[in-house]
């Protein structure tokens, strides 16, 4: 097992694309030559219900097929989850949590059950609405976690994502540019406070 194995846990709500972002990260990591796992935890999924998804990314095949209990990074796609879900449970102290929020970290810390590691925020709503004209938080959150974790080379990641969008949105190329701007803005804007 590689020491470099990185484990990421996603928290979102059904319909926000947390699972899609998790799968996109697996795609991007695969394109970068990594061994990947991307899998959601399935419950009674409905729009708005809290969902969890996971990534393992490493240089060797990872055979573990359990959930992730001690992630290196946690991504919170919807900050309203903070009051109901213990998102930093098991999160490594030398890791980080990336939260979609316009608030300063000082307002978010009280919800993190004493987590003392790094907290990053990104206003995915603002970026998404500016670049795409609608609220799709998953692309900016994906970019933010790549920027924070450096699990992938950020430049290479941007190139791979462009190729992936061109494939995914072959029938609606007008959205590619917006999504690319989303990525780039998010990587610039994500911050630890």
């Amino acid at each position, binding site marked *: 097992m590689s020491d470099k194995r990185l484990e990421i846990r996603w928290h979102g709500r059904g319909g926000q694309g947390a699972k899609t972002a998790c799968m996109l990260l697996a795609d991007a990591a695969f394109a970068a030559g990594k061994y990947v796992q991307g899998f959601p935890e399935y419950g009674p999924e409905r729009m708005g219900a809290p969902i969890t998804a996971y990534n393992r990314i490493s240089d060797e095949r990872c055979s*573990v097929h359990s959930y992730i209990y001690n992630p290196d990074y946690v991504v919170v796609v919807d900050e309203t989850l903070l009051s109901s879900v213990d998102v930093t449970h098991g999160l490594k102290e030398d890791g980080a949590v990336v939260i979609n929020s316009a608030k300063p970290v000082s307002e978010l810390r009280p919800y993190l059950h004493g987590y003392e590691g790094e907290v990053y925020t990104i206003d995915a709503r603002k970026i998404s609405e500016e670049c795409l004209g609608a609220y799709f938080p998953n692309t900016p959150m994906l970019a933010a976690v790549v920027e924070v974790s450096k699990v992938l080379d950020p430049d290479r990641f941007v190139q791979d994502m462009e190729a992936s969008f061109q494939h995914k949105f072959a029938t609606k190329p007008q959205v590619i540019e917006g999504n690319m701007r989303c990525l780039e803005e998010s990587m610039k804007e994500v911050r630890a406070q």
Partner: protein
Amino acid sequence: MSRRDRLSGNEAVAYAMRQINPDVFAAFPITPSTEIPQYFAQYVADGQVDTEFVTVESEHSSMSTCIGAEAAGVRAVTATSSCGLAYMYEMLYVAASARLPITLACVNRALTGPININNDHSDSMGARDAGWIQIYSENNQEAYDNYLQAMRIAETPDVRLPIMICQDGFITSHAVENIELEDDQAVKAFVGEYEPENYLLKHENPLAVGPYDTSPYYMEHKVQQAQAMKNAKTAILDVAADFARTFGRTYGFFEEYRMEDAEAAIVLIGSTAGTAKTCVDQMRAAGHKVGLIKLRVFRPFPAEELAAALSHVKAAAVMDKSEGFSGCGGPVFADTRSACYDLKERPRLINIVYGLGGRDCAVEDLERVYQYLLRIARTGEEGPVYLHMGQRSLDKEVL
């Protein structure tokens, strides 16, 4: 040339189906196998296969459709899970006794109730006596590879039995992982054409299939069916050998992982094997002599081979991902323990029922099992034989 890709287990099976291009797909959705007919429907719509895609109104009908099609002389496939498999029950037996080599992709899910969509093996374990060959997969790669081998095993003339290729619902069916995919032409060449000796639509020699069998005939047919299941062992190894020659990945009845000098071993089925391998590596690194046997083929049960593989072990835990409700252990335990009875020196064997309805099993859980086994090996004190793991309890549980 094989090609690196990343697919979920369901995508991998649908991809294998596209490459094989079966004649008939009887489709009915049920979580978590729904994606297989869903992906395949896209292949049909895109003209990548010329399969007759039959959207039926129930699983009883999907298996009936497969039976009709296979009897008529073509390859028929379907996919299902849990209650869907249960709803096929009667027809599973018809398929097996009519000796029709149908291929079923089973995406394992707990069989109700209380209602639950997550993984365990209670669906296919309940069908273990139906006369189907059952092969289980650890990950997406094995689901793909096992599926590519399925038809040749099932269609072997002295076998002629239906086959279930199982994988763990959600854990592998919905997890995207790296995979090596084989070339379409190489797959087609490996799987080959289906050429049954006799079939309903062979006009120069019409056939009657599935007659009423009176007592003076029934026993003979059942002995013949039992013999076919024994013959399947040879077919499974032959096809695996050719698969290894062709594609370079090796399969047997089971995989022995670091068993060479193991004092404690776990026997289990499916995706937990991957987690257990990581656990074995960690414990070996700490100096513990532990190993793993991942059972791939459950029907036919490789009794002698498994007993031989366990003969040098001091203590072993058979981990069942289905209850069985015998009151004394799950189905994998029953067969494994029975297989070990003829050994001169038997390992201490315990049964652990775990992972029901999607209850997670992590590396740490398996480490507790190995530590417990090492204690049995050291002290010779076995304690309770039939245990459950992972449940909340008022009492201090053994594991």
